[in-house]
């Protein structure tokens, strides 16, 4: 029965592949012959394809959800204890699953196209089906003439991994999966990939229309139906990118939301080009120019999506990226996919180039088209500047294949490298969105220019001067950027107010531009003005050879030690575990038989509220340790942050930040290094001291106060003749005192010793002997490394303006989309 699920799944993969090919052929015939019979065949084939894809999705999910670890996909991406929402992320953690997600969205979009696009259906669906055939071939998992085509998600664990256990018992089923990558166990990873892939998928619609237009020589009528789709793609893809950035901010310890990592760049570039294509299509709609550019940009967007797929999935990025997929040996297939569609596009463009209608009108500098076109150029150049360095590994591979040795490496500091140049593009975009808006609504003459611009310019200068006075920004490029962004907000705001006739006429463009400008301001502050607050001039030298003093970006905190950092007094108050959403000490619980459960040792309070009554069993994740750090502000206010370390036996250790979110600034904190869990205890030091006197242990002052006779020792049955005493020892910690209670007992005439230890202080004390005649005691002392953390804390001002800007941008896209689709259907 369990094997049936996989076999059916694989069968459905094959069915959906063949159906996609059949749909492509049928739709091709239908488009060529303009005949409804073939169109019907195409629809039937595409519906079969749809059913097949849905089947694959369902069967793969069953395998993951029901923990069928005999399947490699479930085994390598999921585990028994994974909550169901992370089982959804496990679905697309692997290459196969993420291809499947992409395929799934194409199917959904395809159905919309069939339902909505009338005359365009056959040629558009031909391109759709062709893409689907290529994509399903990636998960086909069929070997033809020694050639592996695709990698099936329904492979059995024993087919993928050679382990001796399978030779003994081929039916062996692993007890547990190896789990989801801890980095991906985050709620954003449940929604970010589907959003991103929907954005990916949506770019196929404009591409298919453009190719169809060239093929069927309907050079101009495609723009209208494509506009809403392009806006949809831009909104969804943009949202997906920002979600990824937010995930990186919350989960990774890069210290930010954008790292100019090749994977990020690879998806940001097509988005920029997509935005550019929307603008040229707008120009075309109003003025019938820029048709050729529109064709090129729409097609380029899709090809760049394929290129980014190739970059992230072929393994070519190798060491240069933090998060690329593991190589499944599909690079050849991916390359064919990319080259095939590139060649098709070039072929159609070349054949029709001369026939594309061109307007003979000269571009007027005072027309809005000129300024929008400038904006498009800036967007494209910005994309170009990003894609070139990102492709360095590709250039290396090409050169090395040609026999030329190349040792080029990506820029040493990506963030500095890209921001230094991209800043100027952002400046251009800020200014042009402002100018474009003025020229948008009326063709302006030079003599009126001054009056139109005077008011917004004056307001801009006032506002940005105010911002500059109030903030510490002193770098000229950042000041210019802020001014440009303020200018964009004000001019777009004026446009909105002035032309606010009806909600449907409201300019989504102006709203979107305000969003972009706010994002620029948010980025300038949160990144440009981000400040490492754990920075300290250590007075240390690199080496005795050269005398430069260096700054340290991390701070070392011993348990319960308080250090001044920036305006805060920081104390590391110990390790915590997370139970029911709150943080508790591990020693408040006893282990349960299942390692993912704990039993409360005592009534456990959170604040004043009884959170877990004694004896209750609670679920927790043993991989996670949280390090409680207390921040005390100068006014005495206290808040706690809980940076996390996740120790995953298969994936290694993962550090995640804890962020104090506030309206105007976030405090971002992560541990860099923590003390090792397994302590190496020193050799026993024996001392003899009298009751009441003090001694030193691990640099702490300690004293033994008294002895107490006890009647019960947990885990040991005491007889009438047995004697047990505990010593009460106080250790003066850095911020508070600790009590240690080692036990000495005489049971059945044998002496027993139960040492007491304090992990935080790295102290273990054993009562070796009690000497009543001398009123003294012999103690055995062991010491170990005190518990400590090294952490980094960064302040990110105004980051909320970035998220607010994103939201407004999305609203702008949606408004524009609604407006364009109304226009189209009218």
């Amino acid at each position, binding site marked *: 029965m369990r094997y049936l699920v996989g076999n059916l799944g694989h069968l459905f993969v094959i069915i959906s592949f063949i159906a996609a090919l059949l749909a492509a052929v049928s739709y091709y015939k239908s488009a060529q012959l303009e005949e409804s019979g073939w169109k019907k065949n195409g629809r039937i084939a595409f519906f079969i394809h749809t059913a097949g894809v849905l089947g694959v999705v369902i069967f793969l999910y069953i395998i993951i959800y029901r923990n069928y670890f005999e399947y490699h996909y479930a085994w390598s991406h999921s585990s028994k204890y994974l909550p169901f929402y992370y089982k959804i992320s496990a679905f697309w953690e692997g290459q196969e699953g993420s291809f499947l997600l992409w395929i799934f969205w194409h199917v959904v979009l395809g159905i919309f196209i069939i339902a909505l696009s009338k005359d365009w259906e056959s040629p558009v669906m031909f391109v759709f089906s062709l893409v689907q055939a290529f994509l399903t071939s990636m998960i086909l998992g069929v070997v033809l003439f020694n050639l592996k085509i695709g990698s099936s998600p329904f492979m059995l664990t024993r087919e993928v991994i050679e382990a001796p*256990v399978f030779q003994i018992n081929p039916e062996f089923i692993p007890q547990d999966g190896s789990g989801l990558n801890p980095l991906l166990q985050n709620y954003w990873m449940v929604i970010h990939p589907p959003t991103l892939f929907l954005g990916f998928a949506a770019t196929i619609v404009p591409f298919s229309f453009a190719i169809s237009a060239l093929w069927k020589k309907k050079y101009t009528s495609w723009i209208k139906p494509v506009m809403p789709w392009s806006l949809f793609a831009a909104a969804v893809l943009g949202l997906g990118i920002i979600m990824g950035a937010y995930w990186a901010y919350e989960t990774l310890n890069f210290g930010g939301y954008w790292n100019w990592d090749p994977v990020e760049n690879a998806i940001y570039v097509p988005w920029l080009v997509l935005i550019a294509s929307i603008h040229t299509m707008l120009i075309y709609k109003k003025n019938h120019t820029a048709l050729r550019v529109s064709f090129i940009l729409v097609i380029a967007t899709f090809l760049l999506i394929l290129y980014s797929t190739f970059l992230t999935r072929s393994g070519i990025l190798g060491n240069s990226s933090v998060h690329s997929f593991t190589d499944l040996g599909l690079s050849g297939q991916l390359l064919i996919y990319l080259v095939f569609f590139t060649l098709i596009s070039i072929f159609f463009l070349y054949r029709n180039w001369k026939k594309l209608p061109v307007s003979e009108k*000269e*571009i007027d500098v005072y027309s809005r088209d000129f300024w929008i076109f400038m904006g498009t150029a800036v967007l494209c150049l910005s994309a170009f500047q990003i894609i070139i360095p990102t492709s360095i590994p590709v250039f290396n591979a090409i050169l090395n294949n040609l026999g030329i040795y190349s040792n080029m490496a990506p820029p040493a500091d990506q963030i500095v*490298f890209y921001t230094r140049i991209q800043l100027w593009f952002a400046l251009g975009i800020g200014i042009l969105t402002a100018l474009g808006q003025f020229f948008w609504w009326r063709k302006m003459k030079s003599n009126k220019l001054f009056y139109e611009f005077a008011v917004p310019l004056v307001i801009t200068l006032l506002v940005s001067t105010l911002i500059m006075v109030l903030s510490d920004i002193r770098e000229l490029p950042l000041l210019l950027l802020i001014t440009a962004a303020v200018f964009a907000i004000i001019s777009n705001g004026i446009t909105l107010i002035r032309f606010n006739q009806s909600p449907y006429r409201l300019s989504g463009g102006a709203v979107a531009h305000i969003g972009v400008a706010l994002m620029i301001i948010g980025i300038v502050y949160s990144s440009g003005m981000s400040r490492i607050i754990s920075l300290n001039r250590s007075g*240390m030298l*690199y*080496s005795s050879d050269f005398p430069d003093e260096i700054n*340290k970006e991390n701070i070392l905190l011993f348990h319960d030690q308080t250090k001044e950092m920036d305006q805060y007094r920081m104390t590391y108050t110990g390790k915590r575990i997370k139970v029911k959403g709150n943080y508790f000490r591990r020693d408040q619980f006893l282990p349960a038989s299942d390692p993912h459960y704990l039993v409360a040792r005592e009534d456990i309070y959170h604040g004043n509220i009884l959170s877990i009554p004694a004896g209750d069993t609670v679920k927790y994740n043993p991989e996670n340790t949280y390090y409680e750090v207390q921040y005390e502000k100068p006014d005495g206010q206290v808040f706690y942050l809980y940076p996390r370390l996740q120790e995953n036996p298969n*994936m290694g250790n993962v550090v995640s930040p804890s962020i104090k979110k506030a309206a105007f600034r976030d405090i971002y904190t992560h541990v860099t290094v923590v003390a090792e869990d397994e302590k190496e205890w020193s050799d026993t030091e024996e001392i003899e001291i009298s009751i009441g006197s003090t001694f030193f242990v691990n640099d702490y002052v300690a004293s033994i106060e008294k002895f107490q006779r006890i009647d019960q020792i947990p885990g040991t049955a005491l007889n009438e003749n047995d004697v047990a005493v505990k010593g009460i020892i106080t250790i003066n910690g850095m911020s508070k005192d600790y009590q240690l209670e080692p036990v000495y007992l005489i049971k059945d005439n044998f002496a027993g010793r139960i040492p007491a230890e304090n992990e935080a202080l790295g102290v273990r004390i054993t009562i070796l002997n009690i000497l009543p005649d001398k009123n003294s005691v012999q103690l055995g002392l062991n010491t170990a490394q005190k518990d400590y953390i090294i952490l980094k804390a960064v302040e990110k001002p105004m980051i909320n303006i970035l998220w607010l800007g994103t939201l407004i941008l999305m609203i702008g896209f949606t408004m524009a989309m609604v407006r364009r689709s109304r226009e189209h259907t009218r």
Partner: protein
Amino acid sequence: MKKTHIFGIVIIAIAVMMIIITAGDASTYVSFTQAKKMADDGNNNKIHVVGQLKKDMSGKVEELFPSEDMLSVSFTMIDNEGREQRVYYNEPMPPDLVKSEQVVVIGSFNEDLFIADKILLKCPSKYQEEEIKL
């Protein structure tokens, strides 16, 4: 000449400039000997050096010294040409450093010390687990 042509020329000029900047800022993979020579010639570009930590016969890492305050670390690295080099890293020692089978340091020479701004570690493939636990 039409305005569109000027426009096109300007865009191409900027694009070419981008390529030149990239080529200028792109780092390179070199050996310590080449890197030292570059530094001596006054070329302060940050470069990538690939190598391993110095290990003794039993595979234990040698000459690895975290600083007293644990906030920085210095170690000896052997590049692919076999040259030994002291490397200083002004960050706490990455926990996986000892386990790494390959190290890429990105930085530049300062006198005879290589200052790493960034360290990339390649650890025994933990993301592609090959073992089945019973």
